[in-house]
């Protein structure tokens, strides 16, 4: 048995008095496509940010690609981040730069020193960037300003930027939340394709059950920072997911006041399916 690619154990994260994550356990195996499901504020972004070392847990440990993030020195942490690609709801491209310049910034972790402008990257990287752009179907937009592209196109540029990292893991934080249904479909299909072709491990947060069922191998449901659902999507339908959610919701509402009991409820209703 190989070691998991991502291993989160007992992670709690507090921002002042807000508890964003509550004793989260999560193991992700090589090649899995895991969907984090949960309403806004349930802790999806915070969990993803922990997987890239952008947040440090208040308690618990995060291991990514066999490395304990808390033990890494800054340079090693940057190198690790280089192997973890991340895409965002709002794409986060530099709008005034060209598409290809944005893609090239994905290679920064492998380069020493800052870069400014196309000419500052070696030819081999430029070729790689163009190859990734071709893969996401945007080779014809190479030299356009990023902010002149549609939302769906911008997200595909962001994917190409992530590919530029040669990542082992792809983290996606609500990648389609600001896209129309057609572009969403295109983006999610691309992510799945890349995951299959490159053997990438994907952790992707979504807040719509239907999308999660369509695109995930496995669904991890978050509620108020706690994992309340963890199951493969095989044979699962929307009603079942909603039912589990509904049950948790009702019970939680009743037992909210008593924290220990909340823990029990969470444990009792979770459909555990760690191994795939």
């Amino acid at each position, binding site marked *: 048995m190989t070691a998991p690619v991502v291993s989160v154990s007992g992670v709690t994260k507090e921002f002042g008095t807000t508890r964003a994550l509550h004793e989260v356990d999560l193991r992700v195996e090589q090649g899995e496509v895991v969907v984090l499901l949960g309403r806004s504020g349930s802790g999806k972004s915070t969990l993803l940010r922990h997987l*890239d070392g*952008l947040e440090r847990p208040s308690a618990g440990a995060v291991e990514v690609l066999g490395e304990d993030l808390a033990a890494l020195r800054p340079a090693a942490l*940057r*190198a*690790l*981040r*280089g*192997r*973890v*690609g*991340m895409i*965002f709801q*709002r794409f*986060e*491209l*530099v*709008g*005034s*730069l*060209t598409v290809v310049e944005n893609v090239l*910034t*994905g290679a*920064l*972790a492998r*380069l020493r*020193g*800052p*870069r*400014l402008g*196309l000419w500052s990257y070696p*030819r081999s990287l*430029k*070729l790689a960037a*163009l*190859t990734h*752009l*071709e893969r996401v179907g945007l*080779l*014809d*937009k*190479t*030299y*356009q*300003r990023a902010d*002149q592209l549609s939302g769906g196109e911008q997200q595909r540029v*962001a994917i190409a*930027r*992530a590919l530029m*990292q040669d990542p082992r893991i792809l983290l996606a934080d609500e990648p389609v939340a600001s896209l129309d249904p057609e572009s969403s479909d295109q983006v999610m299909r691309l992510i799945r394709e890349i995951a299959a072709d490159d053997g990438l491990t994907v952790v992707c947060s979504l807040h719509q059950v239907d999308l999660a069922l369509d695109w995930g191998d496995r669904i991890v449901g978050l509620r108020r920072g706690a994992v309340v659902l963890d199951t493969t999507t095989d044979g699962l339908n929307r009603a079942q997911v909603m039912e589990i959610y509904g049950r948790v919701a009702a019970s939680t509402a009743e037992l909210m006041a008593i924290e220990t009991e909340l823990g029990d409820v969470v444990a009792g209703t979770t459909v555990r399916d760690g191994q795939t």
Partner: protein
Amino acid sequence: MGRLAGHGAVLVMLAFGVYSLTTLDFSWSDVATSVRQAAKVFTLMDPVSLPPPGDLAYLIGLTLGIVVLGTLVAALISIPVAYVSAENTTPAGWLRVVGRAIGVVTRAVPDVVLALAFSLTFALGSSLPGILAIGIHSIGMISKLFADAVEQIDRGPQLALRAAGGSRAQEFWSAVFPQVLPSWIATVLHRFDINLRGSAILGYAGVGGLGYAMKVAFADFPQGYGRGLGIAAVIFVLCVVLEIVSSTIRRNLLGIDAVGNSLGRRIVRTATGNRPARRRPSGGAPAGGVEAALRRPWTRSRVRDLSWTGAAVVVVVASYWLADVDFSQVTWQYVLPTVQSFWPPNLGSHTLGDFLQALLVTVEVAFGAAVLSLVLSVVVGSLAARNVAPNGAVRGVFRTILVIFRGVPELVLAIFLIMITGLGDQAGVVALAFGGVGLLGKLVADSFEELPPGPERALTAAGATRGQRFLAATWPRGVPSLIGNSLYLVDTNIRAATVLGIVGGSGIGFYLTNASTVLTLHGQVTTLVIMVVLTVLAVEGIAAWLRRVFR
């Protein structure tokens, strides 16, 4: 309680301003006398003339070269200073403090003082003291505005690069700098305009170019005044022309519309019919595979960007050549002693009382000028406000008056500088008051126009006259911002009065001139600059307090 103290403070400051005018022996008859004196000079001087074309071209080239290079030096140094100063890019908290301190100190030391202090280290007639003086002094403004722009960017792309494993420096150059590049260029161009205006005064510190030629001409009393005025006119035209150029660049290159009300910007706006700047779509579709896509197509935007870059390089190289920069003119063994000589601050053979007395004179000039500006601005500014002026024609006339006041001071200042030596502090007061009306009058007009119209409408409905409406509704609501703007004027006046004092040999500027030309007296320069900075900070503190009280 707070309000009462606030009212008290405002009254005290007004009283101090009026008192300043009396102690500076300021009276309208004096002004009349000096106007008569000026008239006499005008009759005795040679006819207004320009230097021969060759000389004129050389002087213009030298002036522009020094200002371009000085501004460029400041622009480049401002990048690392802003990098450590901005909260979202600084590598460490203490560096942030250092960066902001560099900004405050460089802004506080007048470029004239720097030019005088550097003159030792360089051969006579070298352009390097001027370049360095402009370069160091301008860091303050450019780095502050640049750091503010960095703090206002969209943090998303920066965090995305951090998530991808980028270092802080990589984040800055790949995600932050491209976002703030337009505002950096705009700030630098704006500073260039200011430095060009200031170069007239730098001439008085011996920095070559039009300013120095003007000084030499004016030294030849009274015949040379004709030549002096000719050069002053050239400086004025040059300032307006380059302001038009820089506004145009900002418009076309950066999509930033010409704003503000200085003369050059108004001309740009009129000439372009006030159309908003347009951004053309860029990019193109390379056909045929990845290899082919390596070649970037020659799109309009690429050609345009490259042309601008090329033009900028040409301007810089030309400036280097025009300014005749020659590093062999540096007396290297003086460099370190010059820098060291500024520390520690000391009083030399003077007493703190001497310095305080001089500072008081400078502050009196600043306050006296501010009071004069205030009185005139309330009248002119009110009549330039849409909701106060009786009709559009009156508003138009007074708006135009304000534009002239704002556009002309470069020249007016220059003319007054001539008389300052003879006239002393009154000339400084008049020069500052004149420019102040342009600034404060516009702020008054704008702040009145921004008031919500409700109360005036209510009074009109109740049958109040125009005057009643102004006194009961407009004026009371406009006062808080009037106080704030007046203190802002006092603040800029103190800095300006210091520089005028350097030229006219009065107030704290008198001691600054004496101390900055002798290496062993540089400790006094530091003392004097600290005193000015503390005074300005005190005024800013009072302004902040009053803003809170009258909010």
